[in-house]
């Protein structure tokens, strides 16, 4: 059971400041969706929280421990990052990819023990990928590769799980399935999950809390219905997005720019 707390984060690259005083909290069992327009600083915030980018100021703590005082190995035991899936040119099997999640727990000789094998098997099972285990990662579909990488992060057995656009290359059914699985695991295992999501409807459907980021600051942090509103979406993302309620949940609908065009199409 972990919670991760980022306070007053300022961070950026070279002379460009991307984050200008951002707070982010994720408690055990929560799936926090990080939304916002391109360039808002979502991925940068995720890198800071994951200890991959040192903030210029501010602090990130996990269960009260300052992340900057930990080495990479210790951070990886507390925080798992699910990468956006890239190609790998090498013929790793899915099981070997999942076993990479154990890197931070390898012995001095780099061997995997019984605990590691158990964690790998459990991660494969959690993600419903046991039947994929012996297939080659470069020969499975995009959705299956996404599952393998997610299982890799789960095999880390960290309390905090960070996902950067986990559904970027997936079709709608796989997008839903992936987030459903992550939300369920967050609840069952008490994981603190932060996911950068571009699709506001996915965020509305699966997040327990939503953080809206724009220009490197938090515009609002709250429940789905408090953040994904016509007013806020219009202000932050610009015109052309209508928010309607369906079954108690906000739905964002893209609209053509002009009213006449809309009517012409409807007519």
């Amino acid at each position: 059971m972990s919670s991760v707390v980022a306070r007053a984060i300022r961070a950026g690259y070279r002379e460009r400041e991307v984050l200008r005083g951002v707070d982010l909290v994720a408690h055990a069992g929560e799936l926090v969706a990080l939304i916002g327009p391109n360039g808002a600083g979502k991925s940068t915030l995720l890198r800071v929280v994951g200890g991959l980018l040192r903030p210029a100021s501010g602090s990130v703590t996990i269960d009260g421990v300052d992340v900057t005082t930990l080495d990479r190995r210790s951070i990886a035991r507390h925080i798992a990052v699910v990468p956006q899936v890239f190609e790998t040119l090498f013929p790793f099997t899915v099981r070997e990819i999942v076993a990479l999640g154990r890197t931070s727990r390898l012995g001095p000789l780099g061997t995997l023990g019984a605990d590691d094998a158990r964690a790998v098997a459990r991660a494969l099972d959690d993600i419903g990928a046991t039947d994929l285990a012996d297939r080659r990662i470069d020969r499975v579909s995009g959705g299956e590769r996404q599952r393998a990488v997610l299982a890799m992060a789960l095999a880390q057995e960290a309390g905090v799980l960070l996902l950067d656009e986990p559904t970027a290359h997936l079709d709608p059914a796989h997008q839903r399935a992936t987030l459903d699985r992550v939300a369920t695991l967050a609840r069952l295992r008490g994981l603190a999950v932060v996911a950068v999501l571009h699709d506001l409807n996915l965020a509305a459907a699966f997040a327990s809390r939503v953080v809206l980021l724009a220009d490197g600051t938090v515009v609002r942090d709250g429940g789905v219905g408090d953040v994904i509103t016509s007013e806020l979406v219009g202000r932050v993302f610009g015109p052309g997005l209508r928010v309607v309620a369906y079954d108690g949940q906000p739905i964002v609908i893209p609209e053509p720019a002009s009213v006449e065009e809309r009517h012409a199409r409807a007519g």
Partner: protein
Amino acid sequence: MRTVSVFALLAAALVVSAAAGILVGAVAIAPGDVLSALLGAEGTNGTIIRELRLPRVLGAALVGGALAAAGALLQGMLRNPLADPFVTGTSAGASLGAVLAVALGLEPALVPLAAFGGAMAAIALVWRLARLGGRTTVLTVLLAGVVLTSFAGALVTFILVSSDRLALRLRAVLGWLQGGISVINWSELAVAGLVVAIGVIGALLLAPRIDAYAFGEETAAALGVDLDRTTAAVLATTALLTGAAVAIAGLVGFVGLVIPHALRFLLGATHRRLVVASIPAGAIALVLADLGARTALAPAELPVGVITGLVGAPFFLFLLVRSRREIV
């Protein structure tokens, strides 16, 4: 099961190729006489076998094993099958170090260390250049490697021509540069062997962590790899292995490229298997290439680099064409 059979096969092939390397040569010696020469019989046969063929076969095995292990490490860290000590300019840096040491009249036993220094400087420089854009791409590593190889080659030629010490032995040195294992004695072999042994231990310890680079450096870091330390260790290990190899055999190209790639088809991608298997496989490849080099045009000898170049360069082009899209 498959892994076990591949390793058994490699062990058998290593014994057979070493035996062939010792049995076959410019002077025909009957197998029985080879055996008694190995067991210490005096005379011409004893000299040929113990002072010429045996060190040469061992030297070839060391060079091949070292280059293949270095190639496997580099490929894993750069996550690209196009990398090896030769194409990254590491070998050229090592040859510059070695030639400089000889031109300055250093102890012959120090030549492998000078080669290591040259290799380390070269690969560190290439890495620096490749990182200028912020992200390391294989294309920039290869471009920097090409530039450095030409530059080091030009310096080597300059030193060769201007050094009195080397000018007298120009032909021998040029032959060595092309990849020749012809002139080798036991003391050189011992120093190089020690350097390779240290490099191999480093490679075996690093191999399991190299897998974490499968999705790039950032993911490796997220998985718990200390990038700065691991990268430095991989570069240093590569330089050790390459330095020793170049000190013995000059510029032998493509062994480090072809061997790990071929083994991946048999063993899969996991580096804890791949690096281990690369050592005997590289040794076999170079013992056989050297055998070919000294028998193809017998009694004349080809530099072994000619054989590996003839086989390796087309293979490199084939890989380049196949992975054209991914390396940019």
